[in-house]
């Protein structure tokens, strides 16, 4: 998007990642463009398998073999991560752009103490001594609100609760104050009260350090509360993108609208059925030639343009609100009845 007030810190342009399949290349991340500014939270939403995680793994050069990034740019402060040597990329990973992984229970190495693993990030990137990195580890644990960090720094992961492990992972990720923090479903494995604490923590850290935050999630409640901007992904494509306010108030893509309709609300009367999205997420090897959402879309209704031609991500009623739908104007016309 061109209308951000400041230049974005992270700018993903036309990123495309493919995996070899039995009948040619399967496109998993399809021409994805996203921007994250300083101190901004971008939420990337979508069903499982919509390419959210793979987009950022591609951006960081972590695509598992045999997949590969075939096109696009990933500009971090102007430098294209995809064009860096493995060594230069490694120096930026963890230091300038960091990821918090989905599952806090397995993302920590069971045989080392928490302090060791935080110190490891520091020693991989700086010349801090063991003692100094241990000190920094304690400070970082304090910043993520681990109680009694002087003692807990010598604990092993199994001595931490799930929420504490997630915070330890966040501590590893922020130890070097990266410009961009990618939190990949940071709360999926946690219970609701701990979820709120972790999200609050991330928001606080963002305010303190001014880092850009990417929140990969399928929890729309989290998005509504924490995101500045939202990108909705489906079948590896960005379907709709805009400020959180606009996307929630005036969704301009039928997929987004269907997602909202499928969530229960506290203020809807009991007994009213939820509207599920019919069908299943598409097999990325067998996408229709037109719009990827067409087979499940309530707007398509067998219209030829939907099944034959692939819509582009274009501005809808306001320039920074993008939609990948031929008929978004119909959504603008009749305000959703949900």
């Amino acid at each position, binding site marked *: 998007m061109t209308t951000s007030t400041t230049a974005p810190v992270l700018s993903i342009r036309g990123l495309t990642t493919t995996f070899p399949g039995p009948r040619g290349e399967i496109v998993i991340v399809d021409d994805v463009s996203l921007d994250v500014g300083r101190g901004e939270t971008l939420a990337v939403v979508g069903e499982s398998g919509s390419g959210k995680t793979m987009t950022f793994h591609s951006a*960081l050069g*972590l695509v598992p073999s045999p997949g590969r990034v075939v096109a696009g740019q990933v500009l971090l402060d102007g430098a294209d991560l995809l064009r860096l040597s493995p060594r230069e990329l*490694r*120096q*930026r*990973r*963890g*230091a300038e752009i*960091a*990821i918090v*992984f*989905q*599952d806090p229970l*397995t*993302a*920590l*190495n*069971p*045989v*080392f103490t928490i302090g060791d693993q935080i110190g*490891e*990030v520091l020693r*991989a*990137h700086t010349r*801090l*001594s*063991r*003692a*100094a990195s*241990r*000190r*920094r580890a*304690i400070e970082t644990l304090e910043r993520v609100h681990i109680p009694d960090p*002087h*003692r807990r720094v*010598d604990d092993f992961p199994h001595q931490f609760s799930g929420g504490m492990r997630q915070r330890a*992972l966040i501590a*590893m*990720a922020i130890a070097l104050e990266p410009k961009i923090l990618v939190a990949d479903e940071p709360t999926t494995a946690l219970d609701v009260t701990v979820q709120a604490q972790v999200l609050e923590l991330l928001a606080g850290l963002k305010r303190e350090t001014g880092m850009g935050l990417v929140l990969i999630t399928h929890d729309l409640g989290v998005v509504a509360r924490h995101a500045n901007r939202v990108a909705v992904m489906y079948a590896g494509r960005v379907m709709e993108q805009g400020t959180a306010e606009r996307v929630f108030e005036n969704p301009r893509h039928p997929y987004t609208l269907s997602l909202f309709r499928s969530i229960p609300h506290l203020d809807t009367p009991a007994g009213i059925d939820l509207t599920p999205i019919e069908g299943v997420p598409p097999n990325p090897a067998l996408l229709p030639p037109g719009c990827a959402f067409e087979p499940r879309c309530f707007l398509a209704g067998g219209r030829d343009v939907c099944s034959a031609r692939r819509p582009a991500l274009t501005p809808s009623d306001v320039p920074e609100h993008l939609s990948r739908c031929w008929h978004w104007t119909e959504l603008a016309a009749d305000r959703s009845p949900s």
Partner: protein
Amino acid sequence: MSAEEGATDLTVAPSAWRQLAGSLRDHLRHPGLAVGTGLLGVLFVVALIAPWIAPYPPLKTNMSNTLAPISGAHWLGTDQFGRDVLSRILLGTQVSLQVAFAVVALSLTAGTLIGAIAGFAGGWIERITLVIIDILLAFPGFLFALALVAARGSSLESVIIAVAIAFTPRVAAVMRSVVLTIKPRPFIESSRAIGMSEWRVLWRHVIPNALPPVIVVATVSAATAILAEAGLSFLGLGVQPPTPTWGNIIADGNALITTNPWISLSAGFCIAIAVIAFNLLGDGLRDTLDPQMKRQTGRGLL
């Protein structure tokens, strides 16, 4: 931030030591592990002080007192050259334990590295390594060691090198398969995401997590190494006489087995004790290193 400032934080909390002591205590509660460790401890002490506790110089022949029976002066009698059998067996402990420890150290180091690199790198490196491992495993280990000793000439080093080379592929094969189970774990990916180099990931995260099963294999192979040394010495291809080893004591007593069975039997008994000790240690480590396998091998021993 200077290193000096942080120096006070470097001291490990006392609770960590207490934890370590506690876990050692837990481990020694395992009967097999306790007995194995105890027996090995005794053997180790004997090997260390053998020159001082041996009642006679083990190489000193006494042609006027050959094939003496068991008596107060010679607890296990003398052999056909009048040498005290007990003294020779005590000294033989040194060779056997040297071989066991050296073989474990060599094959564990080489096997761990080869297996870890093969499993972690994947691709053609893994394929080539696997082919070589399979070829080496297809040889019977003892024959392989026999051939190597024959080529290098018999000496203590030859025996150690030969047996170590015979065992390295076993360790490497186990290491590789364990590494394959660790490679897809999320913390490996997260180490890459924090910008660690591949070598560092391998060294810091993969190998420490893969070690427990490999240590078990190495311990058990120590027992086999003692047997292999004894076998080679028995055939006259190991440590050369007159240096006493359990294997050549058996060989010396072999011709006299009907008249003076104690010579061979006592050395054989020592070999059995050492092998059992290493096997118990290996089984015990297998049980205690894997928290999901709290079986207690050898409970009946206590």
